[in-house]
């Protein structure tokens, strides 16, 4: 119990030093949004071409989720690490000391890992959320799966918008709708392009 308390205190301290909350929140929304829109694009493509094989839809969807997750993990880890190391070097110049083995160095490593995990998990979760109906093709016909999936995607977009609205203390509904509009624009462009193909 004492160990757990010390561990959570340490994490709290690292969070404060690295100020990871803000950037993690930003990455979560940005990449969650990417995940939702990517899978929406994929599903719209399948829907408009009247594709009816749920196994293929789910398989391509899940591999897209994995690819987005891996891309987020690698990309965020490398960019965040280099950015934070550069800040640490500047701080070392200012304090004329090596900060690698200090709390500041540990907080840097902690923040890099947290941001990379969030960057990987956010698009995976939102994209997987949209694919859930295709797991129930035994009970639902393919058209219903598509419609439920679209509804879930727009719900995810709305929730992400509400989350942003809560952070900026703006009107939650308007903030949610801003995200939904991005989804609608994406759908409209896809429909116009594919119908005129």
């Amino acid at each position: 119990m004492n160990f757990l308390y010390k561990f959570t205190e340490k994490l709290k301290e690292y969070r404060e030093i690295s100020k990871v909350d803000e950037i993690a929140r930003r990455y979560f929304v940005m990449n969650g949004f990417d995940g939702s829109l990517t899978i929406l694009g994929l599903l719209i493509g399948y829907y408009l071409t009247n594709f009816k094989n749920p196994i293929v839809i789910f398989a391509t969807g899940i591999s897209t989720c994995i690819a987005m997750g891996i891309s987020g993990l690698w990309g965020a880890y490398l960019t965040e690490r280099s950015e934070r190391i550069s800040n640490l070097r500047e701080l070392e110049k200012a304090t004329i000391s090596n900060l690698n083995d200090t709390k500041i160095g540990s907080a840097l490593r902690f923040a890099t890992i947290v941001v990379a995990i969030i960057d990987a998990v956010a698009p995976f979760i939102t994209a997987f959320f949209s694919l859930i109906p295709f797991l129930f093709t035994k009970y639902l016909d393919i058209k219903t799966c598509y419609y439920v999936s679209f509804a879930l995607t727009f719900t995810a977009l709305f929730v992400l918008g509400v989350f942003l609205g809560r952070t900026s203390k703006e009107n939650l509904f308007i903030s949610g709708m801003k995200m939904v509009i991005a989804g609608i624009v994406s759908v409209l462009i896809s429909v116009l392009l594919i119908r005129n193909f």
Partner: protein
Amino acid sequence: MSNIRRLVLDVLKPLSPSIVDLAKQLADIQGVDGVDVSLVEMDAKSESVKITCEGENINFNDVEAIISDNGGSVHSVDKVSSGSTIIEEVPTHQDTESTLA
């Protein structure tokens, strides 16, 4: 060897962790009864602070370890009091003269 009862240090440290956290951590050291951390000078990324620790038996290495762990470095040890009681600095004739001048 006698114990250290008061320690005054000049420290350069990054802005984060804050002096609030540093003071709390220093006060948690065994043998330290009280801590005062005063801001002397502040820069965009770092700050100079004066740390005063008082206690029955202060371990200098423990104090220095906490400061280093928080990214700080001891620039100078400005004052050390040791023994069974704390002796305040006594102003001498020269000090009085320089004050008058």
